[in-house]
């Protein structure tokens, strides 16, 4: 391409205290292209995007847009230069309405600086319409579910009508249908000539959308390739710096007897049209089996796992039998006692103790056993930590490193390690690979496989069907809180699953 680049990133570097997040990164983005940026967790993608969008001010190197040097002091400057961003983490104000969030910081005002509420509601409704997302513009964001909140974020970015749009893992909380909608929107935008910088850990997305792909590793620029001239394997290699052979789930390993059985489990949803979050769920889980649970956003996967773990806001009805023993957990402590472990969906919010060290994060569930008479034995604790770090190949400076100094994938491993320490009988993984890079993903798959072989019973949910198909022996499909299909590894296909997932759904209930 000979045209003068729209964005030119020149020798950009950025350090946080100890970490060198970016180091002398340079590449160009051509006008109108969709440029994907890939890299492991902690490669520096988000940091670079934050610099591009004026969120991070102080950095080394230069940033050129439309042939002139820019020096953003804040997001405002970036927006004026026509750059807008969809951040990796949700950045919405729960207490405000959808419209208010979309116009946050850029409210429309009339005389005496009074808000033009009606007008904003109107425009917001249109934007959501473009995304054909059935979200009322005046609803409070806190009443929306995660997926819809992500759509609001997208609408917010669109409302700027800027000609450079950065999307940092926009689909990490979306499921196929919503992703499909997003694709349509992206097409519209590109038709309008908008340039898009796109970050994702999902190869299929990148290869579906991107014109060119830039790979970062450990904060350094590796290579920029045309999509046509490359393949996922090569990209993955460039990202991780070695080949990663996706290991297939050792087909139909011999399973033991039933560990967990659920009979007619239902969970009420007061004050909601549907009336229930879950209805008459029945399932059996055998020792050494990996059971995948598929479903759309809000299908109730998280709730199901929360019920099994005694963490649901309301008490579920129905029976849960653990190795034949009926049990009703009202507190995760009881579930933990009984040998059930839950790796939660939202790492940052529900999992990490960000002010603590790797050691403290890993041992938090196992302290009682590592203590004598209530006093923690630092020796045993350190030993246990190192063992986990070894077994799960966690990349860290050591047990005493701050958990925040780890990349997303390794943080996820720490949380899994935390639960493995309690050597549970049943391991519940709620979307364990959300926002985790491909290298770490394959390692997680291998880990699950090994655990299952060692006789652990695992339930895993995921928003990525290919993933489910790779890891699970059996797949249950949830749709609006009801089990609509049970597919063995042999018969399961993306097609069948999507049918089941949308089976009883006549437009999502909100």
């Amino acid at each position: 391409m000979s045209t003068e680049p729209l964005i030119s990133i020149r020798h950009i570097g950025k350090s946080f205290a100890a970490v060198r997040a970016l180091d002398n990164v340079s590449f160009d983005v051509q006008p109108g292209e969709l440029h994907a940026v890939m890299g492991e967790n902690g490669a520096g993608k988000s940091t670079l995007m934050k610099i591009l969008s004026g969120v991070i001010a102080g950095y080394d190197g230069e940033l050129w847009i439309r042939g002139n040097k820019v020096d953003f002091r804040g997001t405002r400057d970036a927006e004026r230069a026509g750059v807008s961003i969809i951040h990796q983490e949700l950045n919405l104000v729960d207490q405000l309405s959808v419209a208010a969030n979309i116009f946050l910081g850029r409210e429309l005002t009339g005389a005496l600086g009074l808000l033009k509420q009606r007008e904003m509601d109107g425009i917001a409704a249109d934007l959501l319409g473009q995304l054909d997302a059935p979200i009322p513009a005046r609803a409070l964001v806190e009443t929306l579910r995660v997926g819809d909140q992500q759509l609001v974020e997208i609408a917010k970015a669109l409302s700027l009508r800027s000609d450079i749009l950065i999307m940092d893992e926009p689909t990490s909380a979306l499921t196929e249908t919503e992703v499909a909608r997003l694709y349509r929107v992206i097409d519209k935008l590109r038709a309008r000539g908008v340039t898009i910088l796109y970050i994702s850990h999902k190869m299929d997305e990148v290869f579906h959308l991107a014109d060119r792909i830039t790979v970062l590793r450990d904060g350094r620029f590796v290579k920029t390739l045309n999509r046509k001239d490359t393949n996922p394997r090569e990209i993955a290699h460039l990202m991780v710096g070695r080949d990663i052979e996706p290991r297939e789930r050792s087909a139909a390993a011999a399973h033991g007897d039933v560990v967990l059985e659920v009979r007619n489990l239902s969970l009420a949803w007061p004050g909601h049209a549907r009336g229930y979050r879950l209805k008459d769920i029945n399932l059996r889980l055998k020792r050494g089996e990996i059971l995948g649970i598929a479903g759309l956003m809000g299908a109730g996967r998280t709730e199901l796992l929360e019920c099994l773990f005694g963490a649901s806001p309301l008490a579920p009805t129905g029976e849960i039998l653990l190795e034949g023993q009926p049990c009703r957990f009202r507190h995760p402590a009881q579930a933990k006692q009984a040998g059930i472990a839950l790796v939660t969906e939202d790492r940052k919010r529900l999992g990490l103790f960000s002010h603590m060290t790797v050691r403290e994060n890993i041992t938090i569930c196992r302290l009682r056993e590592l203590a004598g008479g209530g006093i923690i034995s630092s020796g045993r604790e350190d030993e246990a930590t190192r063992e986990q770090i070894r077994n799960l190949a966690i990349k860290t400076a050591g047990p005493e490193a701050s958990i925040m100094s780890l990349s997303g994938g390794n943080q996820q491993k720490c949380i899994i390690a935390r639960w493995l320490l309690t050597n549970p009988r049943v391991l519940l993984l709620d979307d364990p690979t959300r926002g985790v890079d491909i290298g770490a993903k394959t390692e997680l798959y291998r880990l699950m496989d090994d655990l299952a072989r060692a006789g652990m019973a695992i339930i895993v949910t995921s928003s990525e069907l290919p993933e489910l198909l790779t890891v699970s022996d059996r797949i249950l499909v949830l749709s609006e809180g009801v089990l609509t299909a049970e597919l063995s590894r042999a018969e399961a296909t993306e097609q069948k699953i999507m049918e089941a997932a949308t089976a009883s759904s006549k437009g999502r209930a909100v």
Partner: protein
Amino acid sequence: MNSSVARPWRTLEFKLLVAWLIVVIVTTFADQNRSYLNYPGVCAQEILRQTILLGIVALGSSVIIISGGIDLASGSMIAMASTLFAGFMMVLDPTGFKDTEVTLSGGTVALAAAGALLGGLLVGTFHAWLITRIGLPPFVATLSTLVGLRSMARGLAKLFSDSGQINLNEEWVIRLLTSPWTLVSIFAVLVLVFWLLMSRTVWGRQLHALGGNETAALLSGIRTDKLKWLAYCLGSVCASLMGLLFLGETSAAKPESDALGFELNAIAAAVIGGCSLKGGIGTIPGTMLGCLFLSTVIDAIGKIIGTDSKVYEGLIVGIVVVFAVTFSQRSSQVKQYFSGALGWSTIPFLGLLVGTVSMFFYKNLTVAILLGSVTVLAAIGRGIWETKQAKA
């Protein structure tokens, strides 16, 4: 918001109004002097006055709370403003201030008032600076000014008069500051302005956003520092304004005791009025109803108990705050009050609480024991019921 439009009787404001009516009715008949019936005018005026004095400060505090901060220094700011006001008048026109014959010129008074308000502006700025530039948590920043400002005011007062108290004996100034018209008009304007600000303007919207999710606000390009600056200035200026009126009320600036602990009343009023200390949630009308409710309750205590009412005031205010906030909670999943170890072990305290309170008011041990044990039994009953529920 849309929901509140749908069924007004579900709104906090409505609940508060009902609660307030109940208090008024109870007081009317529980007060054996029937003050409300004999002197409706006087009583109404007095309650209104207290509500306004509390309300002016609560307006500022609520804005700060909604923006996700807290102001522990408003009480001290009141004392400081009242001292500055008196002090400036004294400095600008010593004879006119001291001498009852010579009257103060309106200009002098206006100038002094302006000075006191400016003081408020400076303190508000200082708060914002401590929080955004030095990076202190709001609690710590305003805690230090809570102790610092009052002591500074005491020092200033000592500079003006050894007694550490500056007496104002200018007839017309006191008249002006205490006249209902002054109060009502100032208050009306303030409430209108603040209500518009918080519910209709960009700043109000962004203040809510700031309180709700600071990073989101920041990433949306909102100048959060400027907003905090605005919030804390509004807070301190409101307090200073109250300080001016307070000088009229007490006709003497005595910083060592003026408005001591008033910040707690203001915060309590805001919380009763539905402001969440986590930030992002709260309305001006709610806060104002909170003030009306709180000052009515305090007035009622005085009416009903009479002698030593001050002694028991705190107890009743505390209980009222707990109940008000409990009922004002929009959607609390909590229902298991008395089951479980914690629940059971709280029952003794509740019994003792009720017992002591009734002891205070009936001065009769048997009644106290009776009511106390009734409470305990009721709680135990409820506890058993809850446990059954949980089982089922």
